[in-house]
């Protein structure tokens, strides 16, 4: 939403200017909120109204304000945002403004510039010549960059709750706990995924090792084969568990199909070694060393795999990014076009990715641990569904729903 505050003064009641202005706002597709009215008491007394005018687009607002100016509306001058130079590379000036993940505008020279991307816990760097405002992390900032400080001249527009039942993300109770039924919600999610695919949205999965350990890998493969996942984010462990399962039928030495230990940790390390030997996952698929599992399905179906490293990773598997700053840069780039994210059984990576999600990305978070779900959805209360459940039954039911669909994937 774009908005301006206007003021009307004069004999605006007797002249019917106030109702005319309100009518013009509505008939031109805008909305208004009267924030102050003072009606003159005596005949010659003038009246006053302060009105917040909002529209869907900046162009519509400009056009509307032009019309309203003809009716005597004066646009309230908002203060410009304040900036200070970054004192050194990687350091923001004191009092720098810290972003939320809501749509944000900064005002300079009477014009508002939208901050992109709308990601949380960043500072705002301004390029006034180009009329650009970027949310940046510590690693982005260079000495002398103009950074917004204080709160003046900043406008944050929270996501509005939908008023019609067209968006399950805004109508389903945020978190569905362990004791509540889930089938209906999973059907809604399946429906949403189908709709998104038709609308050419981008769906990402952030996958935790529990998917493989609980035996849910096969269902995720069905989703990948169905073409409803475009990008997969995971840690080294997830990939290692998956290839171990593909090679030996175990994950960390446990056969998820029969729940019997077979081979202990040896299998895990041998699997990693096999992938390292051949040079990586894609090479392993190409050379038919890796012929099944989630990683295999991703390579076969052109799903972009983004692997992020952590301390304690075995290997790591080639292709895992181990530099933390590099990881952040990759996440920011790879999440830019994503419209929907499924955070599956991994609190660590859910939170890491959440820092780069804009507020218009819809998220589904599935985890067996209630606090993990709460933490993952709290940043996007109107854009997320959280389910407290084991991930395997969730994936099974979701894949079943989608495979039953009459629409071809």
């Amino acid at each position, binding site marked *: 939403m774009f908005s301006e505050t206007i003021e009307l003064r004069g*004999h605006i009641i*007797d002249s019917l200017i106030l109702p*005319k202005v309100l009518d013009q706002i509505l008939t031109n597709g805008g909305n208004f909120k009267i924030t102050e009215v003072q009606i003159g008491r005596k005949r*010659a007394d003038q009246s006053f109204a302060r009105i917040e005018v909002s529209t869907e687009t900046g162009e519509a607002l400009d056009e509307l304000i032009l019309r309203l100016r003809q009716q*005597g509306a004066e646009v309230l001058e908002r203060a410009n945002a304040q900036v200070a130079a970054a004192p050194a590379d990687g350091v923001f000036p004191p009092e720098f403004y810290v972003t939320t993940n809501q749509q944000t505008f900064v005002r300079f020279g009477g014009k508002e510039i939208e901050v992109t991307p709308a990601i949380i816990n960043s500072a705002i760097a301004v390029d006034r010549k180009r009329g650009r405002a970027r949310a940046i992390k510590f690693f982005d900032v260079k000495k002398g960059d103009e950074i917004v400080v204080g709160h003046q001249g900043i406008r944050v527009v929270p996501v509005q709750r939908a008023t019609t039942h067209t968006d399950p993300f805004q109508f389903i109770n945020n978190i569905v706990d362990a004791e509540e039924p889930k089938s209906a919600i999973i059907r809604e999610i399946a429906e949403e995924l189908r709709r998104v695919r038709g609308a050419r949205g981008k769906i990402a999965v952030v996958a935790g090792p529990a998917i493989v350990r609980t035996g849910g890998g096969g269902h995720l493969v069905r989703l990948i084969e169905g073409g409803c996942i475009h990008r997969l984010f995971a840690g080294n462990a997830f990939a290692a568990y998956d290839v171990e399962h593909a090679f030996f039928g175990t994950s960390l030495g446990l056969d998820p199909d029969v729940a019997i230990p077979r081979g202990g940790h040896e299998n895990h390390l041998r699997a990693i070694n096999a992938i390292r030997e051949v040079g990586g996952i894609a090479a392993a698929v190409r050379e038919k060393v890796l012929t099944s599992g989630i990683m295999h399905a991703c390579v076969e179906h052109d799903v972009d795999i983004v692997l992020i490293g952590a301390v304690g990773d075995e290997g790591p598997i080639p292709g895992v990014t181990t530099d933390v700053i590099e990881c952040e840069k990759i996440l920011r780039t790879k999440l830019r076009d994503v419209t929907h994210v499924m955070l599956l059984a991994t609190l660590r990576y859910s939170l890491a990715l959440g820092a780069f999600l804009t507020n218009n990305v819809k998220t589904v978070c599935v985890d067996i641990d209630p606090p993990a779900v709460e933490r993952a959805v709290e940043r996007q209360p109107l854009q997320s569904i959280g389910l407290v459940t084991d991930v395997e039954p969730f994936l099974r039911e979701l894949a079943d729903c989608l495979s039953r669909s009459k629409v071809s994937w």
Partner: protein
Amino acid sequence: MRELLLCPPDYYGIEYEINPWMSVARGAETAIVQEQWKQLHARLSRFCKVHLIAPQPQLPDMVFTANAGLTVGRRFIPSNFRHKERAGEQPFFAKWMEQHGYEVDWLPEKLYFEGEGDALFGNDVLFCGYKFRSDIQSHRAIAEMLGCLAISVELVDPRFYHLDTCFCPLPDGGGFWFPNAFDEYGQRAIREHMTDLIDVAPEEAMHFSCNAVVIDRDIVLPEGAPQLVTELQERGYRCQALPMTEFIKAGGACKCLTMFMPQREKA
């Protein structure tokens, strides 16, 4: 006796086009111009004391003195003309009024206001037209200066670009007007503050019949409005219709050629 300000049409002509009536290809006939203006002058002189301001070369529209400003009591608020072609008239009118003992009260320069052309008292209300020539913001400033109720009405037909081309209040609280020249809000606002309004037919409005000078029961208006004249006579007014063809070519007639000094003694 009411006092009026007129300006002889010595330099009058269609030298530019700033309203839909004007066409430099269709100039005014000088001899007829003189004759029509003299008739008006003679007629108004019967009921009023008529003052004359000296016309100035290169200011052909100075003849339309209604646009010089607004006079209330001994205060004169000079116009801020929207078009540069007419802006040169302002200092001559202000100086003349000052020399004749009026206190000149200036509006802020950025507010366009075209005097009595867009500001007419009806009942105890100052009706003000806006959009084509005057800005609505000027009305607020004038209402503050005069301490009166100003009703702002939007003009929507460019042929009726000043309030006095489509609205004429009468001393009995009524008036005559061409409603289609206003938007619906303006029409409602006028109806709420006026009684007994006579709607002028479109074909008569096109003869500038609303552009009339009203002095008590005498009304001087352009020829071409027999229906309106009948209605006014039925209400007890004496009407004198004058030929105004050469001034209508510039988008003006009887009222445009006349400024009240003052329009009201008190706001």
